[in-house]
Every structure is written in C-alpha cells, then in structure tokens.
C-alpha cells in the first residue's frame, strides 16, 4: 500500500488520536468504562494500523520483536509484583489496601498499576500476533506487495 497517499496521511493523523484515546480508556478505567484489556487492544490497534499501511518492516523498526516480547512479560511481572508487594506489606496476595497508609488510596494505586500491567501485556501481545501472522506466507504464493 505504499502508493496510497490518502491512506498514509489519514493514518498518520489518526494514530496519535487512537493512542491518546487508549491512554484515556486505560487511566479512566477506574471510574468509567474501560480498563487494561480494552486500552491494550486500542493501543495495539494503533500499531497494527501503522503496520497495515506502512508495511511490516517499518513496524518492526518502531517496535522490534525482542522489545515487544519484553514489554509483554514486563506487564505480567508488574501485575504479579504488585500482588507480591501486598504480601510483603502484610496483606494477602493482590490486597491493594495495604499499599498506602489510607486503604482507599491504596486501592486506587493498586488497581491503577495492575491495569497498567494488563494494558502493557495486551498491547504487546496484539502487536506480536500481528507481526507473527504478517510473517506468514502461503508456501507457493507470489509476493504481491
């Protein structure tokens, strides 16, 4: 799709808005509809749109696979880490109330971090899925780029 000028321009305009909206869904998830899963998918969709319009190689330059694998794992690690922090501070696993002196503030902090971990992993996995399937070619099909 390298020759479609309109697609290039529109995609370049759209992608920042998609990502800002993803961050809104991410951090507003405590109060309104949203959360890590939805935000992660939207954020990942930004990269996927870029990948569809500008090609796989360009996308791999922005998000190299080793980096995405690492962020996918870091998200899970953040999730578990917050849970373990609760255990060290005297609560149960994933008990956010003990994360701060004020239990309500602790719950806020906990869910924010947990959802951030979820969002990070989901966004990374979306990109990994896209890149893996973009790699796939039928054994004897012509390269029709």
């Amino acid at each position: 799709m390298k020759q479609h000028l309109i697609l290039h321009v529109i995609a370049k305009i759209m992608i920042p808005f998609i990502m800002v909206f993803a961050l809104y869904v991410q951090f507003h998830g405590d109060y309104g509809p949203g959360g890590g899963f939805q935000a992660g998918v939207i954020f990942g969709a930004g990269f996927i749109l870029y990948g569809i319009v500008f090609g796989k190689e360009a996308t791999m330059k922005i998000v190299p696979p080793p980096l995405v694998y690492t962020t996918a794992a870091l998200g899970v690690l953040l999730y578990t880490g917050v849970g373990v922090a609760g255990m060290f501070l005297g609560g149960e696993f994933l008990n956010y109330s003990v994360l701060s002196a004020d239990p309500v503030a602790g719950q806020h902090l906990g869910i924010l971090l947990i959802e951030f971990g979820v969002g990070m992993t989901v966004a990374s996995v979306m990109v990994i899925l896209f890149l893996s399937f973009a790699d796939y070619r039928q054994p004897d099909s012509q390269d029709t780029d």
Partner: protein
Amino acid sequence: MLSLHLSALQVVIPLLAAPLCAIIRRPGITWLIALAVGIASCINSIAILLHINRFGEIVYSLGGWAAPFGIEYRIDSANALILLIISFIYLLGIIYAPVSIKSEVPEKSQGWLYTAWILCFTGLSGITISGDVFNVFVFLEVSSLSTYILISFGQDKRCLSAAFRYLVMGTIAATFYLIGVGFLYSLTGTLNMADLAQRLPDLISQNTVAVAFGFVIVGLAIKMALFPFHAWLPNAYAYAPNAVTAFLAGTATKAAVYVFIRLIFEVFPEDYFSGFTSSHHIILAVGIISAVITSAVAIFQNELKRLFAWSSIGQIGYIAVGVGLASTAGVAASFLHLFNHAIMKTAIFMAIGGLFIVTGSTTTAALKNAGRRMPWTMAAILIGGLSLIGVPFTTGFISKWYLVSASLEQNFWWLAGLILLGSLVTAAYVWKIVEIAYFRKDPNEQVVRQEAPLSLLIPTWILVVANIYFGIDARFSGSIATQAANTILGISP
C-alpha cells in the same frame, strides 16, 4: 499469616518466574530459574501438607476479599496430595530436562520452552488449590495454552498437528466446562465451591443443575482423556519433547481428574452423582472399557511413546473405575492410583528419553539389545512396566489391591475380574518390550555398553526407587489417599 501465604506462594512463585524467563530467554539462566521454582514449590508443598496435618485446611482469600465474593484458595488433604505430586514431578522433570531438551530443541527456543513449562506448572498448581470454579477455568486455560506450546516444541513436524488437535479438543473441553459453570452461576449466583455446595441441595430437582452437571463432567472428561474423549492424547504425548512428555504424563491429566472428583462429590449435592442421576454407572462402565481396550490398542503400537500414551489412557480408566464405585474405598483407590501412576509413568517416559539420547529413536526396534546395552535405562522401563501390570513390590500392585478390594466391597466380582483382565492385557504389551530388549539376541553381535547420561538416569531412578518403596511400604501413600477420599466425601476420619 505466613503459613497462610504458603497456599498463594505455590502459584505466585512460578507466576513471577515465568515472565522473568520470558525477559531473559537464555537457556542456562531460565533453566536455573525453573529449577529454583521447582525446589521452592516442593518445600512449599511439603510445608502445606504438614500444616494441614496439624491445623486442618488452609483457606486464603485473594486480595483480602472474603468468599463468596472474592476468590479463595482452599487446600485440604486431597489437594495437598495432588500438589505434592505435581511439584515433585515438575522438579524431577526440570532436573532431567537440560540434556534431553538440548538433543531435541534448538538453543534459541529453549528459553521459551522453560517459560511455557513454568507457566504450565502455574496453571496446574492453580487448578489444584483454587476453591472457585471460575478461577479453576482460568488456570485450566493457563495450563492448557502452555501445554499446546510445549507440545509444539517437538522435533517431529507432526507435533504441530498434534498440538493443534489438542488445542481444538482442549478448547472444546474448556468451553463445555465454562458453560456448565455458567449454568450453575445463573442458578445460584455464586462461583465459590463451598458456597455452591451449600446452595445446590435445595435446587436438586431443577433440570438446569443436571445440564450443568453434564457439561462440567464432559468438559473435564476431555481434559483428563477419559475413554471416548481420549483422541488428542496419543499424538500429543508421542510428538512432544521427551522431557515434556514425562512431565505431562505425571501431571496434566491428574489435575483434571482431581477437579472432576472434587466437583462431582463435594460441590454437587451428596448422592447426586451416584443416587440422583446414577451417572456413576456410566463412569464405571467407561472406565473399565477404557482400561481393557486402550491397553489392548497399546499392544499394537510400534513407537514406545505412543504405546505408553495409550497405556496412560487405560490407567486413567482405572482411576475412573474408582470414581465410578462412588465409595470411600473407591475414591481412595483413585487418589492412590493418581499418586502411583504419576511415579511409574514419569519414570518410564524419562527412561524412554534416555533411550532416545543413546539410540536416536523411540521405536520398539531401537530396543534391540537394550537389555545388555543400557541395563539401567532398560531396567527403569521394565520396573515401570511391571508396576503397570501390578506385580507385587511395585506401586501398581498396591493400586490394584485397593481397587479390587473396593469393587469386592460392593460385591462386584465381575469388575474385579475385568480389572485383572486389564492387567493381563497390560502384561502383553510389557512382554512385547521385554522380549525385544532382552531376548532377541544375536550371538555374533558385539554389544557396547552405552548408558544414558547420568543427569537423565538419576531423576529416572529416584522415581523407580520411589516406585518400589511405595510398593512395599504404602503406609504414607495409602493413608493420605484414604484421608483425601474421606475429606472429599465428607466423612470425618
């Protein structure tokens, strides 16, 4: 408080380790992490068992939200036993892995393999200790998804279609289970096992309960590879890397069997399984048919891993027979056989992995002269085989003894006869192996002694020795299995 954390740590430690491995991805370091997880989990599961023996069951509310609203982990002697099996088989599997994996999996994939392995262990531990039916589903998916990955690391390209087939079957199983859970939730408004057990007796005559029961049972039967739903297992075991097969054979179906027993006897009302729906007849029939027929299928296999995979389906059949008897003695026999079968089958698959390292093949033809060429490796397969038959002084004998006495308790003479017939059929395929390995001698041939590497032989022989030890002195395994059955069936000891 610290002692209560034990239950959460069983899941949290591997859950922390798995993403760490995914970040590091170097075979050596990820293996060390996996090993550390194994050691920690074994100590942890022993501590849990001791704690339960002294203070009774452990109840842990995740996130500080009390049940029935929050998720709780609930461990009594039944899951403590399964946890112990899973942890020890995992540790021995990891000790066994490096040499075996190196011969089959390219180095750049090994880090991912250990990551998936730790995740699989996370899922299996979670299934075992969770007291929440939906949480069980989540862990079932964690363990299944990582199992598909583990199988697809196999050397033979056919492992991919085996993994895909298992993926389709496993997804159907998980869906069935989830539909059943959904029906239960719509009826009772709770997902907590203890809470469900309290609310279901009032609703016993509703059809929804029966539908939920059917869905849950079929879903779990697929996961545990009970007879008509076993089709995914032979290929999955045959094409997975040897170390992975050894681990899966000892653990994967066991966790599903445990949930099966827990749900039908404890969560569903008392006598629902055996009295109200009379479905215990079906499980009993399926179990005994499976035990005899799949063992007969095993006779005709020429690939050792596939042969013993078919034998695994048969052994699950024996476990189902114990469940189908629906008595304390029957369920105790099932738990005992879970324990014993994990020991013997893992040892056999480990020894087959050793055979593969030496001969580069796992067909029965590779066994030629194996009795003289690698006496220790071959003896491990032989003792495992004898144990499958149920020869005295092996754990298999103890299992059969419990199972036969449980069936005689209900005057099922025909059942005892069929169990012994199953043993005879087992003897046929074990004899086939023995004959090739020990008696097909070519007098002119020089045989060079060439044993499997020590790092493979040691974990194998730990299990072989355990097999013989628990075959002679079954006080530990027998008493804990009986205790587990008493807990599940709600009989105070």
